[in-house]
């Protein structure tokens, strides 16, 4: 076999090119810290990365949804805690007023305080979060409870609820409409209070007795809603935990799919640099052996 000079040069050139390409690849991986950054790097894995990113984006959005829902339920829960306190205070006052020793003027004084508490309840029932009424069903742009003449209160919201998406086909309700809490389902709290106020002012002992029963039933109704809200909040909380887990898992998968193994990339780089040096040295030796160096 003849060895022509162009073969030697071509071989060297090819080797240098190959090694340079590998060095470039390792450097790119180290710089971007990514092993797969173009579809052709690994078409399947690239597809997997697209899926991972979509899954991750969805999981993170659902975490935001859950946080949003939790803040709405928290607001409702603390509003209902106030309702509970106010109702308890009304009951206390009504029990005082029921006493046989209470005079008509005592009862009318108590009526004044109960009326203030009644107004406070209306205010709480119209609670807004960021300009959105939370007890209006989906009529969130309205103050749902309107005070009319003679201590009457009208509900002008609707019975719809709002849900957020927390999983494939999974939704969790994040609002409870006011008609379930205040004007139903078992009793209309505001009607009961209106009647109680009338009884207090008209010095009607039997009416006050009935009113106390109404307040008790109202307390049960509110407590029932608080239970519902607590259960929804629990679901959100456990969903959040599993979404956090899912998002961690996806991040791990994504990293597995696209991240470069830095240790490997760096050792590749070092290895290739060595190869380059060795090639350069051997090239030098190769030309030392040329006949040219011996013909003087």
């Amino acid at each position, binding site marked *: *076999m*003849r*060895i*022509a*000079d*162009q*073969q030697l*040069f*071509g*071989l060297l050139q*090819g080797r240098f090119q190959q090694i340079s390409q590998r060095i470039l690849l390792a450097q790119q991986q180290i710089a971007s810290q*990514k092993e*797969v*950054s*173009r*579809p*052709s*790097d*690994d*078409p*399947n894995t*690239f*597809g997997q*990365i*697209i*899926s991972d*990113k*979509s899954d991750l*984006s*969805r999981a993170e*959005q*659902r975490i*935001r*949804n859950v946080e*949003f*829902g939790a803040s709405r339920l928290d607001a409702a829960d603390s509003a209902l805690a106030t309702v509970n306190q106010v109702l308890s205070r009304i009951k206390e006052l009504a029990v005082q007023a029921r006493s046989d020793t209470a005079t008509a003027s005592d009862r009318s004084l108590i009526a004044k305080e109960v009326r203030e508490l009644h107004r406070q309840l209306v205010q709480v029932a119209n609670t807004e979060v*960021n*300009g*959105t009424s939370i007890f*209006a*069903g*989906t*009529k*969130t*742009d309205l103050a749902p409870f309107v005070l009319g003449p003679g201590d009457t209160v009208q509900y002008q919201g*609707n019975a*719809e609820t*709002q*849900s*957020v*998406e927390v999983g*494939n*086909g999974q*939704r969790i309700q994040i*609002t409870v409409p006011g008609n379930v809490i205040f004007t139903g389902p078992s009793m209309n709290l505001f009607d009961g209070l209106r009647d109680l106020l009338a009884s207090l002012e008209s010095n009607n002992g039997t009416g006050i007795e009935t009113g106390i029963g109404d307040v008790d039933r109202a307390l049960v109704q509110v407590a029932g809603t608080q239970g519902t809200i607590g259960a929804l909040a629990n679901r959100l909380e456990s969903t959040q935990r599993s979404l956090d887990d899912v998002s961690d898992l996806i991040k791990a998968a994504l990293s597995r799919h*696209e991240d470069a193994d830095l240790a490997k990339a760096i050792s590749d780089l070092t290895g290739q640099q060595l190869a380059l040096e060795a090639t350069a040295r051997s090239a030098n030796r190769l030309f030392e052996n*040329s*006949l*040219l160096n011996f*013909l003087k």
Partner: protein
Amino acid sequence: MSGISQLLGIGQSGIFAFQRALSVTAHNVSNVNTEGYARQEAIVSETRPQDDRPGQVGTGVQVTQIHRSFDTFVDQQLLASQEQLGRFNASHGALTLVEGLFGDSNDLGLGHDLNELFNAFQDVANNPADLPSRSVLLAKSQTLGADFNRTAATLTDQRQALDRQVADTLTEVNGLLGQIAGLNAQIAQAELSGQQANDLRDQRGRLIKDLGERIDVTTVEDRTGQLTVFAGRGQILIDKNTSYGLIGLPAGSNSGFLDVGYNPGNGAPVNISSVVGSGRLRGLLDARDQAIPRLLRSLDTLAAAVATEINRQHRLGFGLDGSTGVDFFSASGLTAGTFAVALTDPKQIAASATATGVPGNNANALAVVDLQRAAIASLAGSTFNDYYRATAADVGTAAKDAAQHVQAEELIHEQLENRWVEVSGVSLDEELVNMIKYQRAFEASSRLIVMGDELLQTILSLKR
């Protein structure tokens, strides 16, 4: 007397022959780095002997041939490899540019836009009455639209750029054909008078390889040393000293892009695009008419599906202003290039499923969100994301295949080139040895003449 002058003649023949051989060696040495140069060799043999007693006496040496070390078989294989290399390099170059459109790794591009779009729908579902959330949704939809448009425009630009390359390549091919035909004539003329046109043949070989890199050809050498060059299915590109050029034929059915036309010199040019089997032209045509249009069609399908499905659901809902039956995206056209957001008023985003549920009802927004993971009939039952993912993987596979073809072909080409150089390349060591060999022989021949002169002196001194 005649014996001595014969001696001088033999010495002279040596001096001439080895001088010639040294010239050949020098020519080799000086072309050690010339690509496509085939090593030459001075073939020497005895000159015709003289009849004498008791037998024939030699008369010296002569150079009978300047031999060109050349292996036609390897050369043909090298040409074929060059053709493949030209083809795969062209398609690889085009696909590498195309796959750059998939910026998913850096959270750019259509996949990312789709995720953002559905997230924006979720935010509207959380806060249906909130105008800023709705404006964000419109902005995200416009980003998706702009990226669809930009991708389609880039791909169309790519096709046009490839078409210009086709035109340029055709011009180059015609230039090469003219040069090869010219060399054919020179070689025939030189060899007619018994010469060997070694260097002209080297030049022609180089041009044939340049030609092969652009279009696949078959060559046949006739008895006069001229190459007949065929393209495709036997279309004659060069016949002796005449070349028949290729021209670009604009195809009306293909956006006016050029087909490869063959001009037989009489009558209308023939479209030979389909019979161009290899070379850069094949790679360019494949990328321009196959790979990129396929990707464009996939993106059109995706764009149409996104617009149609979201519109269908959106029309069922109610906007903050009570509007219903409104399209979210423009319903006309429905290609990636024309994809556009139809809504301009964020109040018209139909988040509510009921007229009475406005503004807090979000059921329709959630129904749109469900489309993100729905099996879409027009996408053969895959989700938007899966379809996009398959499209990206498809382009990736094509680009990877092309890269692997280039790598494999480069390897083959390197081996063949090695083989070619092994036969035809210059080895300096070998030439140096030859140089010493011929130099010595030259010296010895000159000694013969000196010796002949001394013999003559001796004879002349006899008569004193």
